[in-house]
């Protein structure tokens, strides 16, 4: 009975808008931050490279897609394409601009802006069309971006294999490596960068969601005619959603390449990844920022846990093909079950659980 919501009286409108209104929540957040910043970097390189960093990257892309699909109601299948723009821009910014002027965090910011602008161009049809028809436009974005980077070898610095490893010096920004005496290319340093970017952007998204911009996004999703009658510029709102969403995807792509795999590779930004991120979004819950992270963790971790179960309990009975197929089946079942029983995904399930616990042991 430590966690209780009673006795928390709101006395002004700033307090009413707080993300964490309860003192207990605030303490948990501080403990969580300390855990993420102080404990997690000291865990094994395997934990960081195989679990934490990739979840941060794809989770951020899910948050990005959520802004477009969950909040504004514009379907998109171009997520991996926009991530690809982010990854390639980060690499080229680092490669072509003298290092005195460019550092990895700054490059990530600018590649987000590039991806956002590409998103706006492919989002232009959204002014006139919606739903499945718009899906085709974003699908075109996915294939166009892929074809573009595949056709012009300049972007990969004329690397014939199609994969270019990221040179270690690109990781060393602001002289932090020498200053703190740590290996900036090592996973702990990469993790801290990815974590900081993700926390900052998640906070930004959460603020956007509870401000006028977020309400404009949702009003366009729910009733675009009513939105325009209230003075909201629907085309501008849609394009802004495309920009912000693709900014997130671009930064996520940069993190995926630089912090996770350590090379720039076109093959990982194929259409499959767009679908995976869409699954994460649907399973996590459309329109909920925390849901996006839950969905990303679930979809990313499921095959890993499944393999681990197979290896430890059934003596390695499942090969990779089995794992992949079973995973896809499980996602499918989850999506169908959630769409029928709880369209709000994990986020809504969590809210229902909380509500049930509030009432417990009474049913109503």
């Amino acid at each position, binding site marked *: 009975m430590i966690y209780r919501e009673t006795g928390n009286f709101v006395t002004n409108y700033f307090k009413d808008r707080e993300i964490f209104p309860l003192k207990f929540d605030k303490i948990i957040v501080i403990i969580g931050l300390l855990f993420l910043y102080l404990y997690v970097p000291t865990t094994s390189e395997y934990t960081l490279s195989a679990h934490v960093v990739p979840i941060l990257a794809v989770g951020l892309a899910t948050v990005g897609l959520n802004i477009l699909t969950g909040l504004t109601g514009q379907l998109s299948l171009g997520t991996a394409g926009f991530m690809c723009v982010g990854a390639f821009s980060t690499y080229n910014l680092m490669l072509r601009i003298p290092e005195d002027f460019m550092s990895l965090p700054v490059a990530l910011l600018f590649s987000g802006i590039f991806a956002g602008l590409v998103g706006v161009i492919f989002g232009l049809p959204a002014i006139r069309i919606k739903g499945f028809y718009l899906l085709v436009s974003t699908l075109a974005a996915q294939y166009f971006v892929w074809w573009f980077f595949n056709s012009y070898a300049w972007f990969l610095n004329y690397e014939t294999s199609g994969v270019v490893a990221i040179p270690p010096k690109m990781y060393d920004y602001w002289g932090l490596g020498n200053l703190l005496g740590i290996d900036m290319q090592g996973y702990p340093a990469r993790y801290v960068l990815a974590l900081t970017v993700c926390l900052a952007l998640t906070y930004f998204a959460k603020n956007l969601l509870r*401000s006028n911009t977020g309400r404009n996004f*949702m009003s366009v*999703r729910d009733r675009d*005619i009513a*939105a*325009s009658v*209230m*003075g909201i510029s629907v085309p501008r709102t849609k394009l802004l959603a495309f920009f912000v969403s693709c900014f997130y995807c671009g930064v996520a792509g940069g993190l995926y390449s630089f912090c996770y795999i350590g090379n720039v590779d076109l093959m990982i930004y194929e259409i499959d990844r767009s679908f995976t991120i869409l699954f994460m979004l649907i399973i996590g819950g459309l329109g909920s920022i925390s849901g996006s992270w839950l969905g990303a963790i679930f979809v990313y971790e499921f095959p890993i846990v499944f393999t681990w179960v197979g290896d430890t309990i059934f003596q390695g009975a499942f090969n990779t093909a089995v794992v992949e197929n079973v995973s896809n089946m499980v996602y499918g079942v989850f999506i169908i079950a959630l769409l029928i029983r709880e369209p709000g995904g994990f986020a809504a399930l969590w809210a229902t659980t909380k509500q049930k616990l509030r009432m417990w042991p009474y049913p109503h």
Partner: protein
Amino acid sequence: MTDILKVENVTLTFGGVKAITDISFNVREGEICAVIGPNGAGKSSMLNVINGVYLPQIGTVTYDGVERRTINPRDAAIAGMARTFQNIALFQGMTVLENIMTGRNLFMKSSWLEQGLNIGRARKEEKENRLAVEKVIKFLQIESIRKTPVSKLPYGLQKRVELGRALVAEPKILLLDEPMAGMNLEEKADMSCFILEINKEQGITTVMIEHDMGVVMDISDHVVVLDYGKKIGDGTPSEVMSNQDVIDAYLGVSH
């Protein structure tokens, strides 16, 4: 009193269907104008023409001294028109508070970057507009449901929230499309009180489509009657009631 709204010779067609044929009428500043008529008479289409949801083929709408043939809904909102819809166009995924806050969007001047970072102007605006919203919430007596998602509310309350969303924009003219449709007697009385109070206390000109003749005759200053897309009556409630064309349209003609 001056005319705030002048509809002149408006004709609206959808393909071959003439929804509105050559209609003209004036709305004086500060009055409650009721638009009545049988189903399919073109009443809702008329409102949609006034605030730019539909574009008429012929005719002009003069609002606040500016004559236009077409206006887009956003410009209409900026010029001070607010409206509700016949079949409730609330944002179903949002709470009552969020819905009504959306009505204040034209008062929010901070950029999305400021709002995302939650700094300076964005924070201040959110608070100031919340105060305005709370005033409307109090006026409509919906304090207890402010954090409820609108999809969970009963029909009557949804209508009230929609009125609040239009009212909070501080409009010069309020267009209400069947504000009392599907309500019971008590809810109708409440809604009539709100409309009268908005009109008399806050001086907001109101154009209202309504089917309940009792309500129309009681609260409106001016009635326009449409039938089959044509205007058949225009005047004070008592004038309209004694108009032979109106009686024929409502009660039928013996052949």
